[in-house]
């Protein structure tokens, strides 16, 4: 007992906070439903959320998160940091793939194309991770800038460009030419992909209609939100679990380490950006989470079109099977503690 106390006192306070937060976080229904999905997939249960339902859940999340972000901006007004945050998001999304690519070349034996494809995912973002972070902030009573939803939208696509640029740098000119032809039309597809349009559109509508608009649809997008999120995370758990089961043999230690190291480094980059801009602690946590998270919707689709020779099971497993659960369980509490330690 005495010894335990000693050890406890020996631990830096930050780690304690992280563990406390993580423990609390791990017992939230959201995480538990993700775990249920993972578990059901591992034991090969036939539990599935119908595809149309999963798509509808994600439409609901984008609709609700976008709208609420817009309302919050309309309530607090546009300030200078908004523009700066958007620019920071752009730069982070462009830059992080290069960091990821360098790490991957050092830590793993992936081919250039596979490494570039994976790198592209880590520059982009996962909106559900963002939502989970928002929900942790909320439960801790920490405020954040509403426009970070718009930053999330801005960060979806640029990383794809970086990934393609990396590949182009390393391919023969013939291959690159062929690829260029294929990527005709890809840009409009990426920039106008459904999730971005819905998120930005809902954000603008929320901004235009403000608190009055929110009042009209509050009982659709605010009160049931957490429950819907539970179902969505159940589905994510199922998908991640099935992906992990199918691709477990490809998960060399180097890849796994990357999947945990990269979000931590990404969050550090996000923290620096947040400090430079002057975001609130909550805002810093969200920008860190965005930087730390990896895409599993927009980027994979773009990669199938532009880099079909990259192996989808590698990038999907990394993003959904390693980094997503890491962020959800340990990452977000970590980012929060660090931001509080730095910011407070």
């Amino acid at each position, binding site marked *: 007992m005495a010894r335990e106390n000693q050890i406890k006192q020996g631990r830096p306070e930050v780690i304690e906070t992280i563990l406390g937060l993580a423990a609390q976080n791990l017992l939230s229904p959201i995480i538990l439903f993700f775990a249920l999905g993972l578990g059901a997939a591992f034991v090969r249960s036939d539990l599935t959320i*119908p*595809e149309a339902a999963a798509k509808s859940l994600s439409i609901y999340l984008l609709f609700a998160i976008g709208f609420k972000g817009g309302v919050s901006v309309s309530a607090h007004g546009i300030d200078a940091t908004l523009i700066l945050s958007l620019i920071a998001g752009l730069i982070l999304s462009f830059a992080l793939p290069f960091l990821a690519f360098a790490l991957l070349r050092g830590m793993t034996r992936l081919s250039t194309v596979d490494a570039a494809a994976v790198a592209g995912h880590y520059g982009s973002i996962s909106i559900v991770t963002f939502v989970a972070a928002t929900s942790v902030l909320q439960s801790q009573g920490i405020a954040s800038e509403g426009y970070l939803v718009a930053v999330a939208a801005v960060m979806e696509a640029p990383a794809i460009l970086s990934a393609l640029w990396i590949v182009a740098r390393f391919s023969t000119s013939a291959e690159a030419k062929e690829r260029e032809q294929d990527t005709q*039309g890809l840009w409009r597809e990426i920039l106008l992909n459904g999730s971005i349009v819905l998120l930005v559109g809902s954000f603008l509508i929320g901004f235009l209609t403000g608190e009055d608009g929110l009042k009209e649809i509050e009982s659709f997008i605010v009160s049931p939100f957490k429950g819907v999120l539970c179902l969505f995370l159940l589905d994510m758990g199922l998908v991640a679990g099935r992906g992990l089961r199918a691709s477990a043999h490809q998960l060399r230690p180097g890849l796994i380490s990357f999947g945990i190291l990269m979000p931590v480094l990404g969050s550090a980059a996000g923290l620096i950006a947040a400090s430079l801009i002057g975001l609130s602690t909550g805002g810093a946590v969200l920008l860190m989470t965005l930087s730390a998270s990896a895409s*599993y919707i927009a980027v994979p689709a773009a990669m199938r079109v532009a880099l079909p*020779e990259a192996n*989808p*099971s590698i990038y999907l497993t990394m993003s959904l099977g390693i980094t997503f659960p890491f962020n959800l369980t340990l990452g977000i509490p970590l980012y929060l503690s660090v931001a509080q330690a730095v910011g407070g």
Partner: protein
Amino acid sequence: MEMKQAKRVEITIEAPMETRLTNALDRAGVTGYTILPVLGGSGRSGRWSREGQVSRAGGMVSIICIIRPERLDELLEAAFGVVERHIGVVCVSDCQVLRAERF
């Protein structure tokens, strides 16, 4: 019933390539086709199933195209340009059609 000889081409391809393929078909003057959903499958890149895809990147579709025999090569040329670097299957069989003037 008067029937005419034709070819039935079945192309199974990833969903994000669908528009590229149908655009290529259109450019090659092939304006008749039907798109069927695919639930899952298996191939050299492993098994997959539609339920259990977060990403729309994962799904596939099957495009059926009935065409006059003499136009087959043009169609295959156009389709191959799109399918070439991607996973997927192209399968052609003989068939007969009613109302041949439509093809």
